[in-house]
């Protein structure tokens, strides 16, 4: 808990400065108390605190681990922090953005190092499977029952049969294509035709989210016994497999190929009078899109369990769902939320969303990906 203590001290420093500047408030007193008394007291305080009152509301510091682009100016993470802190004035939300994502915490658990965070935001199904395959102990705690609003999350987005990870948004993997160059491909088989020779750029499923989703989509459609043959066909027809979404999309922008695996929200970025929308057509193969929900889960080792659950509840409120959708450019996870604005107008949802469930991925996903990569790399 060294890190927590350190952050607490920083909190005192900030509070002290604020005091000097003549803006002492209740919040700074609470923070100073937290820092000097240590984190154990804070935990008790938070878990005994009620959620309704503002006078005796929860207090302390909530450490949220997430990916770096979730934080910073104008992001969903920063909006959540500000809004949550104004709802609970005695609470401070801090972010940790480890470069290797959830692996950081799996490895910490394996090595017996402390988990210095309360909540992980940005977990997908494959990652949750990996967490459970790697660890004998639990990394995340069941939360769905204690989190109000989780029953309103769309049924087909639930990625965790154990109710630890709660989805807060989802993207749909689709094709983005240039309609002046190619027609929209109707089926996976049509991608093998000469019309689509050298036409598709996708990403490496070993380390790219959309690349992995596209691979899983093909396995979903072709079956675990057939997908390698199908991919051999794609390779023979000149598919390009690049590192990650950004290089792939950039190559698409530079005209290397007329189709790229991307997200169905592409036109949220590209619309309006001075944009050539023909370059940004969204294609749903088989009228499908592969759903890639993002979820949040509380660490078992969190010493702010109640506060973590309040935060998850907050992220599922209608207001937060709209803000997350617009700022993260992903679809809301909760039923009946309509983000409106540009997002509401230009984000396209596939007629038939497909995805693999947790149970279908367990014991399979690593092997599928490695077989695929070996197949492509030996070409």
């Amino acid at each position, binding site marked *: 808990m060294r890190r927590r203590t350190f952050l607490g001290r920083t909190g005192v420093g900030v509070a002290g400065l604020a005091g000097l500047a003549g803006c002492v408030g209740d919040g700074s007193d609470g923070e100073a108390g937290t820092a000097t008394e240590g984190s154990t007291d804070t935990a008790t305080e938070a878990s005994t605190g009620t959620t309704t009152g503002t006078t005796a509301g929860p207090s302390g510091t909530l450490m949220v681990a997430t990916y770096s682009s979730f934080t910073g100016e104008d992001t969903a993470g920063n909006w959540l922090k500000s809004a949550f802190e104004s709802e609970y004035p005695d609470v401070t939300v801090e972010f940790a953005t480890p470069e290797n994502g959830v692996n950081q915490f799996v490895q910490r658990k394996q090595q017996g190092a402390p988990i210095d965070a309360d909540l992980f935001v940005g977990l997908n199904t494959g990652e949750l499977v990996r967490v459970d395959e790697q660890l004998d102990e639990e990394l995340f705690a069941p939360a769905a029952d204690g989190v109000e609003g989780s029953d309103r999350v769309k049924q087909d987005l639930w990625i965790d049969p154990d109710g630890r990870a709660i989805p807060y948004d989802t993207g749909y993997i689709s094709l983005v294509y240039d309609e002046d160059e190619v027609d929209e491909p109707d089926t996976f088989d049509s991608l093998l035709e000469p019309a689509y020779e050298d036409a598709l750029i996708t990403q490496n499923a070993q380390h790219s989210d959309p690349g992995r989703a596209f691979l899983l989509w093909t396995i979903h459609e072709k079956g675990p016994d057939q997908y390698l043959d199908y991919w051999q066909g794609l390779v023979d027809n000149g598919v390009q497999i690049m590192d990650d979404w950004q290089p792939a999309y950039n190559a698409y922008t*530079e005209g290397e190929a007329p189709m790229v695996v991307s997200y169905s929200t592409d036109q949220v970025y590209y619309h309006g009078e001075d*944009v050539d929308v023909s370059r940004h057509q969204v294609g749903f193969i088989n009228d499908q899109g592969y759903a890639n929900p993002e979820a949040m889960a509380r660490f078992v080792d969190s010493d702010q369990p109640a506060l973590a659950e309040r935060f998850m509840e907050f992220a599922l409120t209608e207001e937060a769902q709209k803000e997350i959708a617009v700022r993260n450019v992903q679809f809301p996870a909760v039923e009946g939320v309509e983000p409106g604005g540009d997002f509401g107008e230009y984000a396209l949802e596939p007629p038939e969303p497909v995805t693999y469930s947790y149970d279908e991925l367990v014991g399979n996903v690593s092997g599928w990906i490695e077989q695929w990569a070996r197949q492509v790399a030996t070409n």
Partner: protein
Amino acid sequence: MRADRVAIPAGVAATVAALAVLFYYPVGSVLAAAVYQGGRLTLAPLAEVLSDPFYVGVAHYLVTDPLGIPGGVAEWLAAGAPSVRLGLFGFTAYQAALSTVASVLLGLPGAYLLARFEFPGRRLLRSVTILPFVLPSIMVAVGFLAMFGRTGVFNDLLGPLGLGPVELVGTLEIVVLAHAFYNAPLVTRLVTTAWESVDRRQVETARTMGASPLRAFRDVVAPQLLPSLMTAALLTFVFTFMTFPIVLALGGLELATVEVWLYARVQDLDLAEAATLGTLETALSLGLTYAYLRYEAAQVQAGSAGESLGRAPLFDGWRSLDARRLGLLAYAAVALVVFVGPLASLVVESVTGPDGGFTLEYYAFLLEQQRGVAVGTVRPLPAVRNSLLFGAGTLLLALPMGVVVSVVATRGGRGSRAAEALLTAPLAVSGIVVGLGLLQTLVFGTELFGHRVVVTGAGAVIAAHAVAAYPFVSRNVTPALGGLDGRLVDAARSLGASRARALVDVELPLVAGALVAGAAFAFAISVGEFDSTVLLAEGVDSYTMPVALERYVGNRSLGPNLGPATAMGTVLLAVTAASFVVIDRVGGRWER
């Protein structure tokens, strides 16, 4: 002057201690997983990789069927020696060899130009040759796409000539070219330094004794250039053997290297297989390093650094345009396309909007970030400041460490090559292995006497950078130091100077050129370093220019484009170019 007497042993001890904590312990903790499983030593993971045709191609017979090899070779020859399966290791070595050849071909004429000709801007050009070295791969990929892509500038140039279009993206050719972009400057830099320290009097002596210019070059100059050329070739081979982001960003998974696989295994948390691949990779590159060091020790000739060779003016009226200069002009055209093209494209991208028109939106974005107050906002100025601070700190640590290693290396004696190889090991270990090791040991912390000791923060970042950077100092300094006349030191010592004083007062001023070159490399390593910086920096607020750039890649507030990242890349270019000029100029004062 007791402190004087113990300075060198103390320096050696400090270097070894720093290496043990920041390199051997972390890397060892990763590699151990390859040979230590379930509580006991095992060779099973190694055997598994070595017998898998996917990894080693036809070489798997060495493990799976060693007795059948003669028969197999005979059969293969009888079949007309068709191409064989190289496997991941074989392919990686193949592309590294191609990349090394390309880097030498592209780098060597540059050294000739810089060492032997005088022209306006020569020193500036010499300073910034190292620039490609600091560029993050994603930026290089962007520059290469804009330059060599299907609709890139290169094809636009070829069009009017009735040539092309060439389609390079996705091919081995563009990967090799990108590797040459990174490593040819290394060749240029190292060979230029060596060329400039060739004693003019030796050449003149040869000439007065009747040698032709060509003969004088072959017998006097070339032997003194060879060690630096071999150093550059070896480093290029090792670097491109361990390449991974460029392969994926420009070539694709079909051209996968060992490092691509290693990274994928780490991400899948299959650390045993990752460690096995890392061990094999390290063994290969350490072996190469050791072989090279033995060669280098045999090459170094005694001589004293005297006056350097004179430079001919590059332009001296139209009549001076002889074959040599026409050749250099052609080379300049190639260099313009390969080096300036991608960098210029990067700068152009930073002021070009999605519709192709001029825009300052991305620089406005940087300013806006600078004003931002939200948690996790990556502000450009702190990134610049951190990069410069870490770079300066790295110089302070890496220069003494590098010189100490050079002194150990030139002292000779039994085992000094092996000792040097071990002290040079940071060059030979993949960045992924080092990063993973640092994470597992120093960042997570270790239980020590009941306390968890965690090493993070600026000090740790600087130390990690210095460990990665000092081998470049010693690779520059060792050949120069070894080339000095031993009698100079003997004379100083007989007059009562300690070994350390003789080094500082006599030897180092004589090898100042090499020292400055090493300093530039050390600074470049620090500025360009990404993996360990990200892992060791504390919290969300200590970031360097490459880290900021990487975060801007992920920032899509201006839509899915690289505009903000290219703007940051342009800032990185400007700041580092200015720094290298300063290092060269300040260091240059030592030269005379």
